[in-house]
């Protein structure tokens, strides 16, 4: 459906997108994730033909966007960041204009459908500039959807909305996503986590991860946390329990929090599930258990790991480059060899790269 090959985009001297490649299949919901200024919006703008790439190729339905821009634009519905719309128009007039420009058949019916789907019936006769942010966003969604495009590209669709509106828009995206291919960008992790099948994480213009949402979540540092909370504070028994836990080789850390209750955070290695053993240990005590749960792995940790890691790598590689410059004259051959290495690294698919990084992290965790 969408095929991006070696996309590079420069703004003057600044490389905003650095050699990105990915494929998106039909009716996938893909989240583009990344910190601010990572190149999400630039990538999206090149995808929908607003910006021309410096180099590389984008294919929509198999045909190059550069060669067949109009065809590509027909099959894409695009909602730019913060939904810029003609504020002096009425909602209905605006949708009519877009329907006309997109040459929609059965305009009236289609507009009615959009008003229904996006919950705009109440504001149909209002000026767009008078609408709240949430309603504007919905008009933007209707704008993107009205031509019934196969692909929907949404840049930060929920930014600036209140929690209720976020949930509504999210539901809407899920509903639409059953039949359409959706690419959405966001820096809000929880949002991408619940709406997207697949996540592409971008950092300083490069793809640092590209995987299914579940797979990505399991790529944490390799440690899990179980929380046990007791109502009564029987110091000796708690201490005895903690001692026994620390004796277990799988347990790497036990953290105690004492307020009105006693809370133990037990960190253990991912591979061995020790929850059964913990339960067995607790059976023989008189501690009243009021909570016993394993903390959910969050994308947050993966995101932090990948984006901050990549930053560190970047700095390291820059330092290396500087060093290479110094020795270049003396030892040109070595430099060549290094370059070859780095090229090979680039050839690795993003999945492999990710596994590699996850492994590194795991090793680090173990050494700690």
């Amino acid at each position, binding site marked *: 459906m969408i095929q991006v090959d070696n996309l590079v985009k420069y703004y003057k001297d600044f490389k905003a997108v650095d050699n990105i490649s990915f494929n998106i299949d039909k009716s996938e919901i893909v989240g583009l994730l990344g910190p601010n200024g990572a190149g999400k919006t630039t990538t999206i703008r090149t995808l*929908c033909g607003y*910006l*021309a790439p410096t180099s590389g190729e984008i294919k929509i339905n198999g045909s190059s966007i550069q060669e067949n821009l109009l065809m590509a634009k027909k099959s894409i519905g695009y909602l730019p960041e913060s939904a810029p719309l*003609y*504020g*002096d128009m009425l909602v209905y007039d605006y949708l009519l204009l877009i329907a*006309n*420009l997109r*040459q929609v058949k059965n305009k009236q019916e289609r507009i009615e459908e959009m008003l229904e789907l996006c919950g705009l019936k109440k504001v149909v006769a209002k000026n767009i500039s008078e609408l709240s942010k949430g309603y504007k966003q919905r008009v933007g969604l209707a704008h993107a959807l009205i*031509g019934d495009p196969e692909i929907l590209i949404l840049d930060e669709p929920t930014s600036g909305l209140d929690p209720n509106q976020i949930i509504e828009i999210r539901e809407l995206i899920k509903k639409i996503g059953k039949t359409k291919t959706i690419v959405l960008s966001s820096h809000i992790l929880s949002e991408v986590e619940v709406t997207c099948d697949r996540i592409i994480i971008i950092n300083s213009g490069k793809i640092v991860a590209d995987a299914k949402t579940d797979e990505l979540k399991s790529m944490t540092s390799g440690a899990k946390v179980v929380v046990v909370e007791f109502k009564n504070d029987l110091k000796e028994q708690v201490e005895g329990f903690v001692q026994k836990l620390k004796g277990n080789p799988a347990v790497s850390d036990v953290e105690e929090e004492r307020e009105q209750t006693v809370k133990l955070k037990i960190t253990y290695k991912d591979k061995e599930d020790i929850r059964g053993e913990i339960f067995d240990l607790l059976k023989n005590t008189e501690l009243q258990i009021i909570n016993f749960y394993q903390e959910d792995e969050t994308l947050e940790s993966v995101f932090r790991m990948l984006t901050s890691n990549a930053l560190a790598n970047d700095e390291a590689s820059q330092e290396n480059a500087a060093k290479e410059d110094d020795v270049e004259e003396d030892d040109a051959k070595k430099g060549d060899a290094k370059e070859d290495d780095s090229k090979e690294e680039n050839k690795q698919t993003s999945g492999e790269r990710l596994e590699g990084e996850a492994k590194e992290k795991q090793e680090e965790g173990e050494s700690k």
Partner: protein
Amino acid sequence: MRWNIVREIIKKEISQYYYSPIAYIVLAFYLIVSGVFFWTVFFLQNQAELRSYFNMLPWIFTFIVPAVTMRVFAEEKSNGTFETLVTLPITMEEIVIGKFLAVCLFLLSMLFFIFPYAISVDLVGSLDWGPVFTGFVGAFFLATSYAAVGLYCSSLTKNQIVAFIISLFICLAFFLVDKFFNFLPESLLQVVAFFSSDKHFKSISKGVLDLRDLGFFLALIFIFLRLTYENLKNQLTKEN
């Protein structure tokens, strides 16, 4: 180029003109200034003709047309709506032509206010309608070629004021070029005078329909629309 799309863009632009106060302000300004300048000398001259009206049009247009065109691209760019517009399945040619024709229609509606003057002059004396029509044609070409200049300037920037000032400057240059260089030797002045919008306008409004005059305005329109198109295309490939 799909004309039904161009028509939709024209409709959108025209409706936006009349939603915003700018159209009314410009129209009011035009009517007041042209009215004051015309009637103050009309009775002194004591002649049933509109020559003084047409003589001041180049001056008025130099200020009014940039005010009409300054928002065309600059406003869309600063609001971000340009992005929504460009990513719709329409081409840049359709956008540029549509917006240009919309400005032309607005200016045409403005020019029709010549006729109340003509009719009232005809009531008090016997008016020769020939120069009125040729003057109207000349004024239309003058205004639309300034509009093309204004469109280009509006495509250069996000700031409407900047767009206004640049296009005012260029229009003024075309208006004054022959008056500025009158110290030049006659042969050179001939060349410079060819670029004077005022000279071509006066020549048309005298009733001489010379191909060179029409060609001048058409060339101006074509060149500046082309520049606008290329400029917008370029901005998307390079992006500031």
